[in-house]
């Protein structure tokens, strides 16, 4: 069926049954975001041409390059097809801090986020934790157990990151498909619980 409002990008009856869900994979530089997305989905690089925000302008040395208004940001994304008409999209957030402004668009309507952490550099994931906490986006912390890294208890990480009680912390191996799947499952379960809790709050 052709919608009369095709010019306004309205949902038509034909595609309203198709559903796409978005999950973000965040964390510090080199923590294994690309590896995780690649382990569970067919990964593809995505280029965006972004207008430099004011925040970006402060960091980017644009002196003498007055006409430079856009910058290229590369991200990873992957698709997991659950069934025809239901897909999960994973987006690896750009690691550099100066691309924070991109996160706002990425997190719009996201089902939830995975914050990948490396216990050797735990502080690297603080900004991501802050970001999702402030926006009330459900997230799980997945501790990527690099070989050679000391094994930490989930509880220790929970405490070190000062996470809200109930925030799932999962030990994982970002290279391993089964492990990556488990992380995503924990996130979807948690997002469902958070959503139900919020619905209950709203009718109280």
């Amino acid at each position: 069926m052709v919608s009369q409002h095709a010019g306004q990008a309205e949902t038509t009856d034909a595609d309203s049954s198709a559903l796409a869900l978005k999950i973000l994979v965040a964390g510090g530089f080199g923590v294994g975001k690309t590896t995780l997305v690649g382990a569970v989905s067919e990964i593809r690089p995505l280029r965006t041409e972004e207008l430099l925000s004011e925040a970006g302008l402060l960091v980017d040395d644009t002196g003498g390059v007055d006409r430079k208004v856009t910058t290229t940001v590369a991200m990873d994304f992957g698709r997991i097809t659950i069934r025809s008409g239901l897909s999960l999209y994973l987006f690896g957030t750009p690691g550099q801090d100066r691309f924070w402004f991109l996160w706002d668009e990425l997190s719009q309507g996201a089902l939830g986020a995975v914050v990948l952490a490396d216990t050797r550099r735990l502080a690297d994931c603080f900004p991501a934790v802050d970001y999702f906490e402030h926006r009330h986006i459900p997230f799980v912390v997945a501790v990527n157990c690099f070989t050679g890294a000391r094994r930490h208890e989930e509880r220790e990480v929970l405490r070190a990151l000062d996470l809200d009680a109930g925030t799932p912390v999962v030990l994982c191996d970002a290279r391993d498909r089964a492990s990556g799947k488990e992380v995503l499952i924990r996130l979807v379960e948690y997002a469902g619980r958070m959503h139900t809790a919020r619905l209950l709050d709203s009718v109280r």
Partner: protein
Amino acid sequence: MTEESTADGRERPGSEWYDNEAGPLVRPYAMTGGRTRPAPAGVPFDLIALVTRVPGAPGADTTVLGPEHRTLIELCRTETQSVAELAADADLPVGVVRVLLGDLVELGRVSVSRPVPPAQLPDERILREVIDGLRAL
């Protein structure tokens, strides 16, 4: 205009258009006639907005459509695609794809769905389906 050189100190022709990480600055938008915003005023298409070819719309003719427009139509011929997938498969920046999709929507060639609003997360049944689907991967 600039005295900047590349990271390794080499001067390249046109290097004033690059910094260490940024790619080309203006060129991608040449395919959109310099436009950086989609034609229909409103919110830009989300990365996971789904693009469906409008059934019965005229084929990929050459009169109005540029090669990039035709590539996009071709890519969503068999299956509904997200904006992100179209950008990756057409090897075009997302911003450019948004502008081109705006054209195609105006011309009635494709329809673009809005993703589920954040406040209306899918119901439990869908989430259960996702979890089962992930387990079965």
